[in-house]
């Protein structure tokens, strides 16, 4: 019996994947490149991290969770494990080249040199090719762990996919997520059940909803949108509201780190210094500060899009519930607390119009992904939701 601190313990509802990874870490079926796929929130990066820890584990059984190897990987300080966590919209080729170069060195202390790329679907084409070269002819003791929503060519280049062993994670059941929230975070069981369903299998989102009252307030506001669509003018006002709330959410997430990064860099470049040459040094640093600002801008754009996407998913859940009730399908609702509203809507709308509405939300998400101005996409969507 394994202790509960085991590195795979946080991988909720994925017994098959855990089995595969555990035996690979023990030496059965190990290979140099792995691709973790699964829907958002299913724990792709959790799985990759746990596997990396198991690979560097220095005791038995592999992945004990208490030895220095497991511990340092999980805190992100192991010298032979590198994480690529894109904060911006994409992973640039320059970063990838640098990492590929580093990955070619032999491990310093552990058994493997591990490179974890979270969100490998954000690799640019050039960055993907740089990575491909390393995955094609891997150094002897190097392991690549890639995470992507699916192994579809849209998400991960076919050339990389074909050189990876794929570990498919499924969407964890709402019960499993609720159980995890109760046991690990001490959330009230009733609340845990509600948010686990509302998060649609996304563990991180469920925890956020359970812990952060502001996140719950935002969700409630989004669920109120369908009822407020009373006319064309309201559509535009609600669109402004949705965009503004996504901006506020993103700002709250990034503003603090932006400011501290900036001041750290300014200090490093000699800002606030006095004496001869101090002013000149700061002037010369303007370019680097610009570069930092550019990166921060990209990060905040992504944070805004992610926040908006969460809102759109909540909204999609609403229309899904309406559809479920219209068909009297024997599946659990996503938004249990919005059942009176979805029930009323199910009476009033035709199935076709509900489906059209659901479609327009999905189209809006795709449009924002394709770089359409979020405002325009959301306005077009809300107008169609109103029209039915």
């Amino acid at each position, binding site marked *: 019996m394994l202790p509960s601190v085991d590195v795979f313990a946080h991988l909720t509802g994925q017994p098959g994947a855990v089995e595969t990874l555990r035996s690979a870490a023990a030496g059965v079926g190990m290979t140099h490149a792995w691709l973790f796929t699964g829907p958002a929130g299913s724990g792709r990066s959790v799985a990759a991290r746990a596997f990396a820890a198991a690979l560097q584990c220095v005791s038995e059984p592999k992945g004990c969770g208490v030895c220095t190897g497991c511990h340092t990987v999980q805190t992100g300080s192991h010298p032979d494990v590198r994480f690529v966590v894109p904060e911006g919209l994409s992973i640039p080729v320059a970063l990838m080249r640098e990492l590929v170069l580093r990955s070619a060195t032999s491990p310093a202390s552990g058994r493997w040199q591990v490179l974890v790329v979270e969100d490998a679907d954000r690799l640019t084409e050039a960055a993907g090719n740089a990575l491909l070269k390393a995955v094609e002819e891997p150094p002897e003791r190097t392991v690549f762990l890639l995470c992507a929503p699916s192994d579809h060519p849209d998400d991960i280049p076919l050339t990389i996919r074909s050189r990876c062993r794929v570990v498919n994670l499924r969407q964890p059941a709402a019960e499993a997520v609720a159980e995890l929230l109760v046991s690990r975070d001490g959330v009230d069981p009733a609340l845990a059940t509600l948010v686990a369903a509302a998060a649609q299998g996304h563990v991180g989102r469920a925890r956020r909803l359970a812990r952060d009252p502001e996140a719950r307030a935002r969700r409630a506001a989004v669920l109120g949108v369908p009822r407020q669509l009373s*006319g*064309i*003018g*309201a*559509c*535009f006002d609600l669109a402004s509201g949705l965009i503004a709330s996504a901006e506020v959410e993103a700002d709250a997430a990034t503003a603090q780190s932006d400011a501290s990064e900036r001041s750290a860099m300014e200090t490093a470049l000699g800002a606030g210094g006095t004496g001869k040459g101090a002013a000149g040094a700061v002037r010369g640093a303007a370019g680097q500060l610009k570069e930092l600002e550019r990166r921060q801008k990209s990060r905040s754009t992504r944070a805004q899009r992610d926040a908006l996407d969460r809102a759109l998913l909540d909204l999609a859940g609403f229309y899904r519930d309406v559809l479920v009730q219209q068909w009297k399908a024997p599946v659990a609702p996503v938004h249990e607390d919005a059942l009176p509203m979805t029930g009323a809507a199910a009476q009033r709308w035709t199935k076709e119009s509900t489906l059209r509405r659901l479609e327009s939300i999905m189209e809006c998400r795709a*449009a924002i992904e*394709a*770089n*359409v*101005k979020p405002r*325009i*996409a959301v*306005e*077009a*969507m809300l*107008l*169609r939701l*109103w*029209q039915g």
Partner: protein
Amino acid sequence: MGSVVSQVASPKLPPVVLVLGDEELLVSRAIAETTAQAKAADAGAEVREFDAGSLLPGELAELLSPSLFGGRRVAVLKNGQDAKKDLVPVIMAYVADPDPEVTLLVTHAGGAKGKAFGDSLQKAGATVVPAVKIAKHKDRIDFVTGEFRRLGGKCGADAAEALLEAVGHDLRELAAACSQLVADTGGRIDLATVARYYRGKAEVSGFSVADAAVAGDTAAALEALHWALHTGVDPVPIADALADGVRTVARVAAAGRGNAYQMAATLGMPAWKIEKAQRQARGWSPDGLVSAMRAAAECNEAVKGGSEDRAYAIERTIFAFAKARQGGPR
């Protein structure tokens, strides 16, 4: 000898001139006029130009101190906003007691940078020559008519309007066009003259495309679109303008009839925009607006890489607008 002559002429020439603004043409004109005046007063006048950003206080003192041979001098100090901290007091000390034989001309971009220096020059009695960038349409018309007058010609407001549309907003190009027209035609400029020498549109923004498209004038919208693309306007702002056009009409239409000035605050847009949208809103039904907005969103995706031919994507959106709009073109 020179000194006697120039002292007689000096009352006409201001000792300190401040050219305030960043319109390049007007600044260089002011410099040319001042040097011409100095040369008229004394043919042997010496003109020297410096950049305030790199000038050292010592050099300035040398520049402004009396010459052994006398004679009029013009010192042009460009980019006065960049003057260093140690240079400014030297200049101000000189301005308090200027040499009547020397004309000091300082150009200043007029922005926030080095504002204190510009202000104190004005306070010290410098002659100010404005050279601010022209931003308003009416001022541009005035510039064109004034330009013709300066060159000894005459031109009506309609001709000036036509010339502006054909040449664009760059003052240097406008001035060149004016002098060319006066040289070619002898000075009497009317609409027909402009039409004979100039054709087309120099600057078409996405908004003129959107205005025509939303108003249901497909032909004008397509024409404006092609002029805009022809002059190098990127399709992305045009697509944004199309979406903005639909949004404005929809919001104004939804707000109902009313006084544009009273609605300005609640809708958060200027009154003229509301008035225009109220006119455009005729002929639009709610369903039409929904499909137009959808077309605008699709267009936005198309111009950002979703479509092979971005111009065609916008064209299609203009047709989609026409179809969505009830009543058809008027």
